[in-house]
């Protein structure tokens, strides 16, 4: 399944890049990075169904929740 998903993402990216009239390297690079990120996410979801969503400001959320519930004293 992982191989099929990777193949699908590579095929879509290759087909679209082939369709472009011009291929400036900056655009191609960003396109490939984004496609690789999307493909990686798809593979990770297949491998781990409960993949954790990162929370960069999760601590603020927790603090907010504690204050909201009135337990911010301790």
């Amino acid at each position, binding site marked *: 399944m992982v191989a099929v998903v990777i193949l699908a*993402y590579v095929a*879509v*990216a290759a087909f*679209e890049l082939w369709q*472009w009239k011009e291929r400036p390297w*900056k*655009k191609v690079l*960003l*396109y490939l990075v*984004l*496609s690789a*990120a*999307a*493909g990686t*996410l*798809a593979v*990770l*979801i297949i491998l781990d*169904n*409960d*993949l954790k*969503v990162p929370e960069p*400001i999760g601590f*603020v*959320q927790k603090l*907010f929740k504690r204050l*909201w519930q009135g337990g911010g004293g301790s």
Partner: protein
Amino acid sequence: MRELVPDQQGMILVLMFVVGNTLLYSLGGLAGADIWLAFLIAMGAALPMVLLLARIRSLLHGTSLGAGLEGIIGKWPARLLALLYAGHSWRLACYVVSDVTNFVQAVALPTTPQVVLATLFALLMLWAAKEGVEVMARFAVLMSKIVFGVLAVIFLLLLSEVDLAEFQPVMYGGLKPVVQGALQLLYFPFLEPVILVWVFDCFSTKNSPYKVFVPGFLLAALTLMIMASASLSVVGAHRYAQFFFPVWTAVGRINVAAFLTRLEAIVGISFAIGSFIKMAVCLLAASKALAYAFGFSDYRFVVTPLAMGVIPGSQWFITTVLEVERSATATHSVSEIALQVVAPVVVWMIAEIRTRGSAEKGKQGNARRAQAGGGGATSNKS
């Protein structure tokens, strides 16, 4: 190429975006029987934010949002802000796709894998986003006639099932549930139009943002209030908050002479159309913001990878219908508050200060030029 959307079409796009995928959920369910009051409070609280968004776009008239932001907060802060909004819009697109796929799986296609539906929706929104905001706005105008026609008929038919006693007693639980319901509504969907600021490249006149955002938002809020209140009065205040899709359940009760029944499928179609417009708008906003953040004027080349990312993203953020309901009835989220309230307010304040400063400089310059011109004339005379 900058795309210009006529005011009326823009207004309909805002209307369809806000109504979008929100129609079926127990909006403001925490308010119970006082849902109408929660709607009025939330509308009153969200309106200043919508006016603020329109004001920002009005102050940046004649430039794209990216160029305008660069002018007021600098190049790199503007790009960083664009990157944050790109992530926010992409995440919202994932949520909307997840909402639709979970809904379809729950009510119609229980054995179809969600990823199949997500792929189909991703393809559709990819197409719409590549066509641009002009085409999307025209599509929204066309579809609004179907969606609002259906909602009007459904509302009229629901009137036979309505029990106005469900709204009584007023504020039995005090102010707290009403405020909580209003917060739910602010979180989803009343503060979401911030994404639309990234979608419109330019407006016809300086007042156009007001004509687009304010009536679009108010009409959408009114529509949602009417549909939510009607559904609550049909299913009851307690059940309204318990059901995953109370409007769906309420419409299912319509029975006209045992002939016109099972009309909920029509509401499902309206929900799918609204959701499609919303997810396409989110993808377009994400693409435009991301392209700007990396210094590109054309956004179309990033649409495909972002849409391909939405397919796994929709399975990542939300996995079950319970999570869909939880996300639709949450009251707050720090990241959302930061991007939907704090960032626009900060940008607006800086924009006001900068534009007033430049206007004063312009006036002083004109006065100096006039003085110099007057002096020159006197010296010539002498």
